[in-house]
C-alpha cells in the first residue's frame, strides 16, 4: 500500500512515484568545487604552483637577505588582517563579501519594482522607470560611488540623537544602484519574454492585473532571470574593491597597508596574487554554475 507518508518522503519501490528530478537540477556551487578538485589537470596545476612556490620561497629568503622571514611567513602574518580587517573593526575581504550581499539584496529589491514599473500601463510610471534605469545603467560605477560617498551626509540626526553613517554603508547603497538598474532590465526583459497568451488567459480567468503579474507572470520569469542575475552578482563582487578608492578598509586597502608596512617590492606580486586568488576562489564556482544553468535553460526553451 502507498501511504501519504511514502509519497512525501519519495521512498518507494515504484519508480513512477519517485520525485521528479531534472538532470543536474540540484547542483550547487560546492558540487563544482568537488568537480574542479577531482579534475586531473587542476591537480597538476596545483602541484606545479606548489613546487614553483617552494622554489621561489627559498630564493626569496636569499634575495631579501632575511632568511628568518620567508614569503610564506609574510603571507601567514598578514592574511588575518587582509581577510577580517583590524582587530575590533569590520573590514577586509569579508567586508567585500558582506557589501556584495547587501548591495545585491537591496539592488534586487529596488530593481524588481523598477522593472515592473517599466511595463506599467501608466505612461508616467513607465517613462520615469525607464529614465531611472537608463540613468544608472549607463553611468560608471566609480562615478556613482563618488557621487553618493561625497554627497550623502556622514552623520544624521534622528530624534535628537546623532548617528554616524559608516562609509561602507554609503558605498553599499551606491553599489546597489547600478545593480538596481540592471535587475530592472532583467525583469523587464523576462516579463516581455512571457507569451502574451499568458496575460490573456489569466484575464479571461478574471485575474486582476496585479494578480496576473504576481501569480502568473513573475513566477514564470524567475527561471529566466536567475542566470543573468547571478552574472550580475559576480560583476558586483568584482566591483567591490572600488570602495577602497573611497577610503573603506576592504581587502584591497588592507593588502596595500600590509605591503606598505613590509616596504619590500619582492612581496608585491605574490601578495596581490594572493588577494586575487580569494576573489577567484569565490567567483569562479558561481560563474561556472551560472554557465551551467544558462546552457540548461537555453535547451529547455525549445521544449517549453
Amino acid at each position, binding site marked *: 500500500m502507498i501511504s501519504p507518508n511514502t509519497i512525501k518522503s519519495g521512498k518507494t519501490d515504484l519508480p513512477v512515484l519517485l520525485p521528479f528530478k531534472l538532470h543536474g537540477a540540484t547542483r550547487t556551487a560546492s558540487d563544482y568545487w568537488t568537480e574542479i578538485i577531482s579534475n586531473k*589537470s587542476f591537480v597538476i596545476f596545483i602541484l606545479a604552483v606548489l613546487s614553483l612556490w617552494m622554489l621561489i620561497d627559498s630564493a626569496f629568503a636569499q634575495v631579501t637577505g632575511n632568511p628568518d622571514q620567508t614569503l610564506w611567513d609574510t603571507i601567514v602574518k598578514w592574511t588575518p588582517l587582509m581577510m577580517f580587517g583590524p582587530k575590533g573593526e569590520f573590514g577586509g575581504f569579508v567586508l567585500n563579501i558582506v557589501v556584495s550581499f547587501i548591495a545585491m539584496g537591496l539592488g534586487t529589491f529596488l530593481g524588481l519594482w523598477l522593472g515592473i514599473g517599466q511595463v506599467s500601463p501608466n505612461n508616467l510610471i513607465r517613462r520615469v522607470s525607464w529614465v531611472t534605469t537608463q540613468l544608472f545603467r*549607463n553611468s560608471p560605477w*566609480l562615478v556613482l560611488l563618488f557621487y553618493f560617498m561625497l554627497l550623502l551626509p556622514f552623520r544624521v540626526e534622528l530624534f535628537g540623537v546623532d548617528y554616524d553613517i559608516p562609509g561602507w554603508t554609503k558605498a553599499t547603497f551606491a553599489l546597489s544602484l547600478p545593480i538596481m538598474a540592471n535587475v530592472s532590465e532583467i525583469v523587464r526583459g523576462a516579463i516581455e519574454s512571457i507569451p502574451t497568451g499568458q496575460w490573456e488567459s489569466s484575464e479571461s480567468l478574471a485575474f486582476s492585473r496585479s494578480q496576473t503579474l504576481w501569480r502568473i507572470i513573475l513566477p514564470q520569469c524567475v527561471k529566466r532571470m536567475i542566470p543573468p542575475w547571478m552574472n550580475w552578482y559576480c560583476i558586483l563582487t*568584482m566591483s*567591490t574593491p572600488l570602495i577602497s578608492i573611497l577610503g573603506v578598509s576592504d581587502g*584591497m586597502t588592507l593588502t596595500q597597508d600590509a605591503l606598505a608596512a613590509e616596504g619590500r617590492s619582492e612581496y608585491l606580486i605574490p*601578495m596581490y596574487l594572493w588577494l*586575487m586568488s580569494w*576573489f577567484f576562489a569565490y567567483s569562479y564556482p558561481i560563474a561556472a554554475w551560472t554557465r551551467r544553468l544558462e546552457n540548461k535553460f537555453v535547451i529547455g526553451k525549445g521544449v517549453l
Partner: protein
Amino acid sequence: MEIVWDWFEWLNKAHGIKLTIFYDEWDRGRFLKGIWTTIHLSVVCILLSVFVGMTGAWLQMSRFVWIRRVVAGYIAFFRNTPPLVQLYFFYFAVDRTLAGFFDVKGGMMDSYGWAVISLSFFAGAFNTEIFRAGVEAVPKSTIEASEALGYTKFQIYRYITLPLAYRVCLPALNNNLINLVKTTTVAYAIAVPETLYISNQIWSDEYNVPEMMNVVWIVYLLLVGVLVFLMHRWEKHIKVPGFGQ
C-alpha cells in the same frame, strides 16, 4: 562664447553655483584635457581589446590542448578577479618588479600605459568569449564551402568566419565595449589624468564638489550615450538580412 562664460560667472555670483570649468580658463583647459584623455584611453583600449579578443578566439580553436588551456586560464583569471586589483597588480607590482629586473629607474611605463594594458586584457577576456560564441555560430557548411574553394585556414578565419561571427556577436560586443568605457574611470586609482581624476583635482581646488559631481556624471552619460548611439547605428548598418536571429 564670451557671453556663455560670463553667464556662468554671473551664475556663481548670483546663485553660488560654482562651475569654474566654464569661466576659469585654467580649469576649462584641464577639464577638456581630462575628457580628451578619457576618449583617447577608451578608443585605444577598445581597439586593443578587440585585437586581444580576436587573437584569443583564434587561439582557442587551436589543435594543441595546452594553447587552449592557457587561453581558458587567461579568460578565467581576468573574468574572476576585480579590475581594480588587476590594475594595481600591473601598475604597482608588475611595473616595480620589471623595473627592478631590468634596472630601470622610475618604472617601466607611466600609469596611462599600464591602464591601457590592464583594461585591454580585462575587456579582451570578455571579448574572447564573445568572439568564440560568434565563431561557433558560423555554420559548418560555410566553412566547408570555403575550404572547397581553396581558402587557407587563416584566410577562412579572416574573410569568412570573422565577418560573419562579427555580426552575430555585435550586440554582446557593444555591451562589453560600453562597459569598458565605464571601466576606464578605474584608471583614476593610478592617477591617470582622465575626467574623474581631473574633476577631483578641480573640486579639491575650488571647493565645488556638488557642481563638479553632477558635471562628471553628465559628461559620462553623454560619452556613453554617444557610444551607444554609434554602436547601434553600426549594428543596423552591417546587418546581414536573414543571418543571426
